[in-house]
């Protein structure tokens, strides 16, 4: 891809190719809890979640970093495994086991010269019915040829 073509492709407003987690896994939450030494039962005890005054039912709640990791995977698939300079993430809604969620992003600003361009991106994790679950910003190094 020529630089001129790349400039056309990666412009403000460009939508990053989506990354889909078909079904958030309770088993993966348990493994994650063990690695993180995370004592919070919301990630592995359905009864504890059911007792919360949040009407979530007997589900488990995904760890915040795990939801964020789906967005990281999207950025890696787009620009390679060393493309991320910064991630700032907030957690407006919980992610529950069994849910299908989609990582999405959009370029909001481009900066830098020919040697290295950086893209500022809005990033978010979306559920078809519940809307945006996580949202934030990323700074990503642009590989003009994309990531093969």
């Amino acid at each position, binding site marked *: 891809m020529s630089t001129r073509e790349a400039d056309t492709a990666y412009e403000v407003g460009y939508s990053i190719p989506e990354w889909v987690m078909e079904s958030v896994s309770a088993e993966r939450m348990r493994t994650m809890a063990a690695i993180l*030494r995370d004592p*919070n039962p919301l990630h592995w005890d359905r009864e504890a979640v059911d007792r919360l005054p949040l009407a979530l039912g007997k589900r488990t709640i995904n760890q915040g970093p795990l939801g964020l990791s789906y967005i*990281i995977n999207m950025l890696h698939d787009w620009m390679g*495994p060393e493309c991320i300079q910064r991630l700032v993430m907030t*957690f407006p809604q919980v992610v529950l086991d069994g849910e299908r969620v989609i990582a999405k992003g959009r370029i909001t600003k481009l900066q830098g010269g020919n040697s290295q361009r950086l893209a500022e991106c809005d990033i978010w994790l979306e559920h078809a019915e519940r809307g945006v679950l996580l949202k934030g910003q990323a700074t990503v190094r642009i590989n003009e040829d994309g990531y093969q």
Partner: protein
Amino acid sequence: MHAIPAEEATKALVGHEFPGGSYKIAHWENFLLTGCTGAEPLPNGLAHPVALFHVPIMGAGTSIAEMFELGQAESQLSIIPESYDWEIFQSLKEEVEYDISGAVVAAERRTNAQGQTYDWVQFCFDVRSPEGTLSARSTITWQYTRNML
């Protein structure tokens, strides 16, 4: 109802430093961690960036449980993550011994839009390579809810 800690106790958390220490991301750990994210292992021994949550915490000589206790969490269920800010200056790699330091950099009592009280606490961790270069910084902001959940 839980007793709410004195506001001064929350403010006094600012400046608290964790012991500090080091952390090496083992291959097996990175493999399992990456699998949890739904991705394939990254090439060239790269650690999945999701490690930037637990590696700084554990490497600094603390734990999620201890951070809960530090802010006098009502229970392990009462913490709401507000934001995670991860700055990556050099990609983290497996089997590299990183030096890690961490501290509480902000803490204050706040009230949300519903008039509910919570304590807002921000932790900052620096991850340095064996050569002393700052490789990554993780800033964690949690809300310690008070009689909310």
